[in-house]
């Protein structure tokens, strides 16, 4: 059977302790603990459905072992809140019609959040490079692309879209 070990990390701003199997990935740990907005896509770091933010960086949680999260700060899609207001990135994706099946969306939102947190006004080339780890098969990315450009533009205009 599994040899469980304890680790702790900050999850969505709250310090938490978890029992982990040394062999399990962060994706499995999160989903096992109810953070199911982190989706299972390819288990090879190619699709980004399982993206979480670790210490400010978008990472594929299927490539990160759970133990590697020890002492880190992890943000999942649940960390963006559940109030009446959506996060501006979520809202932009919805407004542009960029949510089709929605399976890639939480990962897409988190990649974008990491990008905008670091640089509120990324240019087109930056968006293309930094969003290259989130595959979407429904939209052809055109509407995701315009949502990202709109968020960037709104930051440039002081929050107005």
């Amino acid at each position, binding site marked *: 059977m599994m040899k469980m070990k304890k680790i702790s990390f900050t999850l969505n701003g709250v310090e938490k302790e978890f029992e982990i199997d040394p*062999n399990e990935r962060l994706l499995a740990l999160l989903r096992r603990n109810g953070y199911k907005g982190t989706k299972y896509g390819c288990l090879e*770091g190619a699709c980004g459905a399982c993206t979480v933010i670790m210490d400010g960086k978008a990472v594929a949680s299927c490539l990160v*072992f759970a133990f590697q999260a020890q002492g880190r700060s992890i943000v999942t899609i649940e960390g963006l809140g559940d109030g009446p207001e959506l996060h501006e990135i979520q809202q932009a994706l919805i407004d542009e019609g960029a949510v089709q099946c929605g399976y890639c969306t939480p990962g897409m939102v988190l990649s974008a959040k990491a990008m905008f947190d670091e640089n509120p006004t990324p240019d087109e080339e930056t968006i293309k*490079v930094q*969003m290259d780890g989130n595959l979407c098969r429904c939209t052809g990315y055109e509407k995701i692309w315009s949502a990202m450009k709109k968020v960037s533009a709104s930051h440039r205009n002081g929050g107005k879209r």
Partner: protein
Amino acid sequence: MKIHDFVFATKISEACELLRKTGESAYLIAGGTSTFFVKSRAPRNVIDINRLPLKGIAKKDGVFKIGACTTVNELMKYKAAGWVLNRVALRFVNQQVRNISTIGGNVAKVFYWCDFPVALRVLEGTLTLTGSATHRVKISEVFHNITAQKAAFKNAILEYIEIPQLTKGMGFGYAKETRTSEGFSSVTAAAFVQVEHGLIADVRIALGAVLPFPLRMFDLEASLKGKKADRSAVEGMNFQKLDKYNLTPREGMTPEYCRHLVEVKIADVVSAALAEATGGSL
């Protein structure tokens, strides 16, 4: 890969000690993405070296000293005159992977070597390895056959990588041919040139992905040295020198096309390096 247990190393000496003590089942992890390529399900004992002070890039006396645990994304974003590894980083898998993969892991673990090792060969990078003692080796001493590669990283921890800062008259070219931005490489080529008085004073060319190791193309280099640093040098390259290599076609290519693509990509990276070195375009 199957992990039996893990331990966080806090000091380099401690990591070395753990590595020695753990023996065959030891597996060093920095970013950890190389584990994706480990197909065996034999249990491994992981030594996590990602918390060691091996991060970041420092520039001193014309040399960039890169901590082995520096992520590819940090290499991509780093800005300094004469810094070229950002171009290699830009073509590395995808953002989520660039954020965790480290240059050390890419050099030490990820077969087949089609990213940083290729560039490091032409930049004449050195690796500083610590095992029972600390020593610095040229990357060319590591990447010429499997025994040397394995031996270099056995019971040793890669601390940092050093590469020279490029200065006026120097140029670097890099190409990684893939079907899509995050696709696997079919050919990776890199070139470094130094131009003095309009002539090619020094040139280094390396090829990866189609070879078991990123190899320097010494014959090709020799044929370019002393030539005028313009298009004619590239056009005059004698690719018969490639005949002795047993190229491995990838991504469904035929041997014939693979060879052709290698030639085009080598010419491309040499052209790019020359253009940069001469401050113009060829």
